[in-house]
């Protein structure tokens, strides 16, 4: 095996640039994709100005609530600056919280408490307005509920133990604890919160697609060496061609897994995202064996590249990344069984695919042995 590794290294040294590109492409693509996705997400927030004529708790709460929305970027400004920026289309719209806002909320009066400015290019004005109205409605509703509780308490017990602030604080606490939209859900084994903090991309999902594609690209060596005239020399060598190919395959698996370990460390540092190394190893072996078997069936390298792209796109679609499958009657279990990525992303061994690929390699080996006998 040592001799095969030495000869393999001699060949790889001559293609080091393309080798480095294919080895580092999955991690580079993942990091680039996530950076782009975050930038695009930031660019798609609506810039909105907020002017506070009074700095009461209710006014500041409105500001805080607006800031929590992933869809808007709120800037606290003076009226003059805010209107100027709308005129210059730097802001989509401006909302002025009028003097007496808190008092109006306390008294349940929702009329004439806000003033707004927008331009002919304010495409998101109506949506932002609706969002602010719903926040104010929630606040007035909470105050109204507090008033009702206090009235009931006085009427039923004759005393006043709860203050309005306490009731509102308790109401906020109950909302935070029981808000279904803030519960934790699981998607393909990856836990994430459904709070309004934007889209959470799993770097391993992006990496899994990229690793599949670039492993297939990298495995063009199988086609090149099967077609090479030097193949005839293996009849007279101490290592049979089939063994040479299997040792070379092991070499590639080892090399790629070392890069995978570096990727895992990088993802942990960059995204605080860890992965089970056994899962990673089983996925790596599976895609290497699969790539090896697939390219063994192909004689032209360009066919393998086209097939690699087509296969990866199919897996992206099967994973539901492009098309939702809910409405077309295809069961998710069936798709997950077909898709080797789903097990990997669930943090499990890719047992079925690994077993299938190992059987395939065994069949290939027996067939090759017969050819060289």
């Amino acid at each position: 095996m040592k001799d095969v590794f030495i000869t393999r290294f001699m060949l790889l040294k001559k293609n080091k640039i393309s080798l480095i590109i294919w080895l580092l492409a999955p991690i580079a693509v993942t990091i680039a994709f996530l950076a782009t996705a975050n930038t695009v997400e930031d660019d798609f927030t609506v810039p909105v100005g907020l002017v506070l004529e009074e700095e009461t708790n209710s006014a500041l709460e409105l500001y805080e609530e607006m800031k929590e929305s992933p869809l808007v970027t709120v800037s606290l400004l003076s009226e003059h600056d805010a209107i100027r920026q709308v005129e210059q289309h730097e802001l989509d719209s401006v909302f002025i919280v009028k003097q007496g806002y808190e008092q109006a909320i306390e008294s349940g009066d929702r009329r004439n408490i806000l003033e707004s400015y927008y331009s002919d290019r304010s495409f998101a004005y109506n949506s932002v307005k609706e969002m602010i109205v719903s926040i104010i409605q929630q606040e007035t509703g909470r105050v109204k509920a507090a008033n009702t509780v206090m009235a009931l308490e006085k009427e039923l017990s004759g005393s006043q133990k709860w203050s309005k602030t306490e009731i509102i604080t308790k109401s906020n606490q109950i909302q935070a604890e029981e808000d279904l939209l803030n519960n934790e859900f699981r998607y393909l084994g990856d836990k994430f919160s459904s709070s309004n903090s934007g889209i959470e991309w799993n770097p391993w999902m992006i990496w899994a697609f990229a690793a599949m594609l670039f492993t297939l690209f990298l495995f063009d060596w199988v086609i090149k060496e099967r077609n090479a005239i030097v193949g005839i020399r293996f009849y007279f060598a101490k290592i049979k061609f089939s063994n040479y190919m299997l040792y070379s395959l092991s070499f590639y698996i080892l090399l790629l897994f070392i890069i995978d370990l570096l990727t895992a460390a990088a993802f942990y540092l960059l995204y605080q995202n860890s992965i089970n190394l056994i899962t990673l190893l089983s996925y790596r072996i599976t895609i290497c064996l699969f790539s090896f078997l697939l390219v063994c069936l192909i004689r032209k390298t360009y066919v393998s590249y086209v097939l690699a792209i087509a296969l990866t796109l199919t897996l992206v679609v099967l994973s539901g990344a492009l098309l939702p499958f809910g409405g077309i009657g295809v069961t998710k279990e069936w798709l997950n069984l077909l898709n080797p990525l789903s097990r990997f992303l669930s943090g499990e061994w890719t047992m079925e695919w690994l077993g299938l690929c190992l059987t395939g390699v065994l069949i290939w080996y027996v067939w090759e042995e017969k050819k060289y006998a």
Partner: protein
Amino acid sequence: MLSIESISKSFKRKKIINDLSFTAEAGEIVGLVGENGAGKSTLLNILATTMKPTAGDIYLNESNYRKDIKTIRKHIGFVPQDIAIWDQLTVQENMVFFEKLSWKNRSKQQLQEICMDMSLDRWHDPVKNLSGGMKRKLNLAISLIHDPTVLLLDEPTVGIDLKSRKEIGSYLRKQATENGKIIIYTSHDMDEIKELCDRVITIGEDPFYTELLKKAGKKVLSF
């Protein structure tokens, strides 16, 4: 001694080689000639174990080709007609590459000596920069790394200049006489065959080659 006993080879129903027998002794260079498609390369491939005969037996010393294929292959050096070397590697790297996969361990100095014996002196040059003649020499040198008993050459001098042809010829003669190798050689160049081979086997129905070689005073065996 290489002993070929009544071998035949058919592809589907077409008989390419029919009941061919001959022996080749150590130190002997045997030429194989015949028109295109007569079966020279097929016979060479059968002798090299990359193809099986339909009938007949072949023995190398006491070893039978059917029973001891692994042992036989250790003693065969095959020089294919197409140049079977890595273009992206240098001469040295090619020699080291195939030495690593060879039955016999050789030092870099020994590998370089094999090349130098054939005047292949561009040790550090990438193969892609070599002339056709140099590539042919390397093609031959690689086949000699494991010091084979039998050397089978399929048109090893095709498309190369006269000087390189002479160098390869004198190297083969040296291998046969000094190292006792059995060399079986195919070529379309009759001058080369007449000059180099101790004995010639003609294959095919056309008597052209047989008559030509007999006129030149060569020992000819026709099939």
